[in-house]
């Protein structure tokens, strides 16, 4: 029977298996079979099918009939089976029958016509294969233009994957090769336009409603807050950590990733503005409070510790009803809870109410998770009230405006409404000085400005006009003062807009971004004779585990 099927090279089991497989025919196969029946060639399928039928019937007299049909010309690529088998086949595979005419009725002209169509199809497919191969080859060649490979992505605000280090261990365990593949894709020369195209492709996946809630939500813990006045419900301050306690310090990368997740979880988007919802995490908050208490205890009598927890734009701007519907934790209550865990010597500065009161002003960006300098200014006023000093008036400062800013929310969401209506950055230059010094992570000392002119920087980086962005250590000297007053701001990126506001008030303003630093804060304060230590964190960061761990570790006295 194997030879009967006319191909001569298929064994019986092959034919049967293939026939079985063809019952589950894939897109490709069905399609190519369809074309085979379009082209006047002997189709393997019909052969296989013809072979299958006698096999299934298992009746030898049928074999004889099939054999006689076999001898007929297979002009249309079909055998002409007996009527009942044909009927069955039509019923089984109505789609594959195409033409119901028997092959005898095909005239030479028609045959020639079918052949012409077959040639046309074969040509299209040949070009299709060539086109695919050429595309692949071109993209391969482009991939070899090493000098065109990007190193950095402005939109994503990150360095792209570097070429992996070659070491014996990394070769043996395979990590070199997986990193190589990562590098090859991440720094592909056409990456930027391809990423842009992919965002356009992503927009085809669905409709972008004006009002959205996106990002993974973790739900968060129940806030154990009791409103003021409920006796006995106020939690006691958490205990400070001793210097012997070993605090596990998170890696910079892990911390950055956690912070990013925290900021991007639960984004409420409305008319081209995004608001991040805060989800309370009991353990991290306690840890954060411990860090404040530890630092204050270690500096007792030497410096004053202030803590400013900045709400997110959602907490400051959205109306009560929306906030309640969205879920998440009430930020006003959460900030109170933070402060309730503080030692009385820590000055918790409540900036929530004043921001809330100014929520019709431009105090937060719409496309970025930061506050504007105006928002930071209202916080600064509260800080001065806590310190019992007169705040300086920023309206008397020189103001520069940087138009067209698309921030982190835009980078995450690629929202078209944001693109159509970008943010702008107003920056107020201190009256006393615009000069500052920063130390990079390599320890290099660089002179720069408190407010840098970023008007020709890319659209995603405008917030970096303030104090040159996030640095391990920076220092600003006020030439108009010589009273020896000094402060240290321990900050995340919310601090960038805040620090310039302090410059006129102190002789020296120090800034540490704790994420890129591991020095002991009490030691540093003593060494530099600092008066005020101001911790400034956005609530989402303060309530994140790696942040509070890092701060706690840095709040311990150093070993030196």
């Amino acid at each position, binding site marked *: 029977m194997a030879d009967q099927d006319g191909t001569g090279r298929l064994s019986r089991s092959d034919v049967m298996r293939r026939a079985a497989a063809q019952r589950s025919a894939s897109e490709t196969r069905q399609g190519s079979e369809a074309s085979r029946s379009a082209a006047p060639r002997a189709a393997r399928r019909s052969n296989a099918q013809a072979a299958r039928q006698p096999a299934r019937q298992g009746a030898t007299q049928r074999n004889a009939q099939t054999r006689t049909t076999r001898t007929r010309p297979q002009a249309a690529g079909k055998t002409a089976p007996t009527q009942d088998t044909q009927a069955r086949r039509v019923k089984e595979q109505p789609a594959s029958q195409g033409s119901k005419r028997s092959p005898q009725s095909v005239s030479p002209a028609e045959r020639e016509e079918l052949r012409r169509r077959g040639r046309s199809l074969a040509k299209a497919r040949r070009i299709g294969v060539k086109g695919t191969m050429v595309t692949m080859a071109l993209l391969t060649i482009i991939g070899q233009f090493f000098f065109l490979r990007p190193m950095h992505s402005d939109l994503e605000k990150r360095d792209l994957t570097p070429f992996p280090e070659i070491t014996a261990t990394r070769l043996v*365990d395979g990590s070199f090769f997986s990193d190589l593949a990562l590098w090859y894709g991440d720094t592909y020369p056409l990456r930027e336009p391809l990423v842009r195209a992919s965002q356009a492709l992503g927009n085809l996946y669905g409709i972008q409603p004006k009002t959205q809630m996106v990002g993974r939500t973790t739900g968060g813990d129940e806030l154990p807050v009791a409103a003021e006045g409920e006796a006995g419900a106020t939690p006691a301050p958490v205990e400070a950590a001793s210097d012997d306690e070993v605090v596990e310090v998170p890696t910079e990368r892990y911390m950055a990733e956690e912070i990013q997740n925290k900021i991007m979880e639960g984004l409420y988007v409305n008319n081209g503005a995004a608001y991040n919802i805060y989800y309370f995490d009991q353990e991290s908050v306690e840890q954060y409070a411990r860090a404040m208490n530890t630092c204050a205890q270690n500096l007792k009598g030497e410096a004053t510790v202030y803590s400013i927890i900045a709400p997110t734009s959602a907490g400051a701007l959205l109306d009560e009803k929306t906030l309640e519907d969205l879920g998440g934790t009430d930020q006003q209550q959460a900030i109170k809870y933070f402060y309730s865990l503080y030692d009385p010597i820590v000055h918790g500065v409540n900036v929530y109410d004043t921001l809330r009161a100014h929520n019709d002003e431009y105090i937060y960006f719409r496309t970025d998770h930061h506050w504007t300098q105006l928002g930071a200014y209202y916080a600064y006023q509260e800080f001065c009230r806590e310190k019992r000093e007169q705040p300086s008036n920023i309206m008397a400062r020189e103001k520069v405006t940087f138009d067209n800013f698309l921030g982190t929310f835009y980078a995450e969401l690629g929202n078209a409404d944001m693109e159509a209506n970008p943010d702008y950055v107003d920056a107020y230059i201190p009256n006393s000085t615009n000069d500052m010094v920063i130390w990079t992570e390599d320890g290099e000392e660089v002179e720069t400005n408190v407010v840098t002119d970023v008007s020709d920087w890319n659209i995603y980086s405008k917030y970096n006009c303030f104090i040159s962005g996030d640095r391990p250590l920076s220092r600003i000297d006020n030439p108009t003062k010589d009273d020896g007053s000094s402060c240290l701001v321990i900050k995340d990126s919310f601090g960038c807009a805040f620090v310039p506001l302090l410059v006129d008030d102190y002789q020296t303003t120090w800034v540490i971004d704790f994420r890129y630093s591991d020095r002991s804060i009490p030691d540093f304060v003593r060494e530099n004779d600092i008066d005020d230590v101001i911790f400034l964190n956005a609530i989402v960061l303060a309530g994140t585990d790696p942040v509070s761990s890092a701060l706690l570790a840095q709040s311990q006295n150093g070993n030196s």
Partner: protein
Amino acid sequence: MVFSSFMFLFVFLPVVLCVYQFVPDRYRNHVLLASSLVFYAWGGPRYVLLIAFEALVSWGTARLIEQSEERGTKRLWLIVDLVALLGLLAYFKYWGFLVGSIQALLHSSADIFTPVLPIGISFYTFQLISYVVDVYRGKVHAQRAYWKLLLYCSLFHQCIAGPIVRYETVADEIDNRRATPGDVYAGVRRFCVGLAKKVVLANACASLADTLVPAGVGTLAPQPLLGWWLGMLAYTLQIYLDFSAYSDMAIGLGRMVGFHYLENFDHPYLCSSVQDFWRRWHISLGSFFRDYVYIPLGGSRCSTAQYVRNMAVVWLLTGLWHGASWNYIFWGAYYLVFLLLEHFVLTDRLPKAAGHVLTLIVVVLGWVLFRFENFGEMGMAFLGMFGIGATGITSLAVRTAFLQNIFLLIVSVVACTGVGSWLRHQLAVRARTSDVALRVYDAEELLVPIVLLLVSTVALAGASYNPFIYFQF
């Protein structure tokens, strides 16, 4: 290396195809073997030794089986091979699970070394077992050349993600194969279809599922009822599109060079019963267990008790094969229950439409077991899907996720059916008589692979998009 990466698409594959094309015929298998070893070594060079060793054992025992006259000796060599292969699989894949389970029972927490899972071990081990058993059964001849057996089990088309190609399927084609222009086109097209299925559809479904029903995060956030269902629908689509896409790409890669692997999926979500689902889902695995476990145990032609035992063995093994964790075993047991239910109670009594809907619900709920290795998460998702502990019916987040992915979901659902190939076939039929249809058909055939490759490249670049908040100079 995975197929859906720039490294594979724009270095490895073009180089391999190019070399393959231009070397003399007799060196083509050498090219394939060398490239397969490079491909395999990419994930950890030392495991090349493992696959080479497993192939060596199987090659040797198969030769000895064929040469020996006595049934007892044949059997002995078969057992040697099975012990070696299954022992290595057990060690590399299940050792950690076993130790962990025993420790959980004894409340111990000693640190015990667990090996890293070598890529593809589940697939090539089963391929080699099927080969040796088939030699034992006299279904195929033992391969004389060791390197050709190694080529069979390490071939980069199917080595790391299936399908589990039987030796008999390719035995002849290892030495005698010819890729006709039709084969090359079908292969290229199939590969591009699979690639697009993976990077355009499956990855997007995965991100939707990860947003709504994240796995491995410890505790899941409470969700409204529709959130659970939308998330699990996305996961249901993802797992089929992803897995079948790998099979498509494998089949396509094989076809380009003249190998005809068997189909691995047959529109499983069109099934009308649970049994039907398993006839259509991961066919190469189902048929492996059928031919090498179920039928040798006696299949269904035996007493009821034996039949239940046979089914239990097969389904617990099927579950375990998918991963070394209890949830996979439960997943296998879950299907066992429904298959027995169908066999003994329902026995085709359901109308077809009802059978289809009920089976789909069974399948979707089954994926809950499959998705969550953590029982806390699994329980929460399970209850949530029945509305227990769910926060209402829907929410702004669910509505947003749905609207933002509505076209993706529609296209993905369509991709689970045979509508695409049906349309193409209709076009093919029309093209026999109409010139306009012929032109459209020609254009479609020409453009589809190229366009799919380009769109996939774009989507793949998008997958590397990882906006990072903290600015570094």
